[in-house]
């Protein structure tokens, strides 16, 4: 069966520090991968998505970046965090092999920038 791992679960970082959040998927190949951010009490904002290794589409200009060094690995990074980067970050995957548009989400990372 397919599983998605996202870590860490919580993170407190000072302003100006770097960030690296990692997401890995098991049990499937060539998945679409996504990074979402969710502000408190709000919906999900798509940050980046990837349809293949090295292919990254950015939806929101900001000081975050994403990389996909391997087929089932998706990394969200920042060189210098801002207070406004605080939020709940969610990784998700979907596959073209399925008959529907279902996306599977990780458990999320609660990032607090102080």
């Amino acid at each position, binding site marked *: 069966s397919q599983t998605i791992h*996202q870590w860490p679960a919580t993170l407190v970082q000072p302003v100006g520090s770097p960030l690296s959040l990692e997401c890995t998927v098991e049990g499937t190949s060539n998945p*679409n991968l*996504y990074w979402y951010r969710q502000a408190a009490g*709000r*919906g*999900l*904002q*798509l940050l980046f*998505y990837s349809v293949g290794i090295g292919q990254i*589409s950015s*939806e929101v200009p900001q000081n975050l970046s994403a990389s996909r060094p391997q087929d089932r690995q998706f990394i969200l990074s920042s060189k210098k965090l801002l207070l406004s980067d605080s939020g*709940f970050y*969610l990784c*998700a995957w*979907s*596959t*073209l092999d399925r008959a*529907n*548009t*279902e*996306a*599977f*989400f*990780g*458990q*999320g990372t*609660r990032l607090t920038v102080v």
Partner: protein
Amino acid sequence: LAKTTQPISMDSYEGQEVNITCSHNNIATNDYITWYQQFPSQGPRFIIQGYKTKVTNEVASLFIPADRKSSTLSLPRVSLSDTAVYYCLVGDLRFNAGKSTFGDGTTLTVKP
């Protein structure tokens, strides 16, 4: 982009049927409608998906009128554990993630 609008919150009691509507006036021809459930500090979980008419699975039904400008998630006989935030997603993440839009969610509170 198909902007989606949902009620911010709804209250219900155990055993009742709950209907949550999502408006999406600008839905595109290739867009699907998908509903997710999210508990606090967890990732959303898929509930149901449809394109038109009615879809039913073991946990919910989804009603989509002919013009597809809205959709209604129906939860039969809710329990306390159904208290969560429910999101509609309009689009197709597989082929058009950049134009797929989540609503801001409806917080459903089920009371005993």
